């Protein structure tokens, strides 16, 4: 039973590799931070009433082109609103500061992303800038409620007439 130095090195490398894979699986594919986009770019803030199922790392797009990522989502207890921090790629440094941010859904069951529509101001967003006009995530239940209420309203109107 000769166990040479090479065997030991290969075995050690294999064991370390296995544990590295386990570490990767636990930290990278479960809920944990991953530096997407690194430090390149600048941060903007948007306060939403409801972010729906928006997730950290979701894309931020303008006219369908990805310009940044959602960096963090937190809850502000003073405003009673969700605070979404967005990291925009430094290439896109001329976004008018009256642009609006809305949470949209890709496809019927797809993931949610933030769509930014350019405004008309000649001042541009700087690091730490805040979106004034925002549109919340579409909550299906609210929409159905509204629709149902609308139908009920119409019915009473028609009977009233």
């Amino acid at each position, binding site marked *: 039973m000769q166990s040479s130095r090479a065997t030991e090195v290969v075995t050690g490398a294999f*064991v370390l590799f296995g544990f590295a894979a386990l570490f990767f*699986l636990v930290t990278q594919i479960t809920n944990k931070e991953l530096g997407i986009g690194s430090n390149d770019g600048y941060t903007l803030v948007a306060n939403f009433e409801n972010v729906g199922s928006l997730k950290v790392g979701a894309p931020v797009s303008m006219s369908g082109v990805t310009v940044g990522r959602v960096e963090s989502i937190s809850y502000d207890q003073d405003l009673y609103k969700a605070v979404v921090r967005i990291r925009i790629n430094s290439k896109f440094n001329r976004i008018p500061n009256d642009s609006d941010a809305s949470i949209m859904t*890709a496809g019927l069951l797809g993931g949610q992303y933030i769509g930014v529509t350019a405004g008309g101001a000649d001042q541009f967003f700087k690091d730490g800038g805040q979106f004034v006009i925002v549109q919340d995530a579409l909550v299906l239940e609210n929409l159905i409620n509204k629709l149902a209420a609308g139908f009920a309203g119409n019915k009473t109107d028609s009977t009233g007439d």
Partner: protein
Amino acid sequence: MYNTFKQMLLDAVAGFGAVALFLLRIFGQLPSALLRPRLIASQIHNAGALSLVIIMICGLFVGMVLGLQGYDMLERFGSESALGSAAALALVKELGPVVAALLFAGRAGTALASEIGLMRATDQLVAMEIMAVDPFRYVVAPRFIGGVVALPLLTMIFIAIGIFGVQLIGVQQLGVDQGTFWSQMRGSVEVEDVMQGLIKGCVFGVACSLIAVYEGYTAAPTAEGVGRATTRTVVNSAVITLILDYMITAVML
């Protein structure tokens, strides 16, 4: 007819009993085997490090196929952004542990069974017994431990490479957004899911290693007997792995 059936049933029960007693004998030698880390290290090398290449290649291609098939299927519902979570969950909970165990049985299990079987056929095990050296301590237990340690590690490597393969096809080739891919995956995969994959890997490691050393040790001391032991190792490992997989999934889901 009735007698043959009874005989088969008795044989099956006796088989399980023999394997269980065999496992107990290995457990009896575990403490003294663990005192010889070099012996175990060389067996981890045999069972694990030498299986690394096949595990990595198969993991990559299983992941790539999962990327193609998953994308094609999810695209029909317009939800290809869920590719990350669907593929990762499939790999972590099912495909990773099971395929890694089947490959392990084919690559390392057969090697173990034929090695011990040849030791039996060439009277090496008998020679050890005559010298008052317990073959369980020097031959069987280190190989068993090596397999038990190696398979969970191989499973984790398989899954990690598989996710890389999914990413390669889904993100780089088919154009699923990278942020969506990873954020959806991270949103749906829990640490418990990874632990379930790890537990499956450990259980399959015990089962496959036990079957391999048992079949090798009890092989008929002929060339034919060694060949038959090798075949039985692969067949029994595959069947037991899939049965255990169902049981663990049913319990842990």
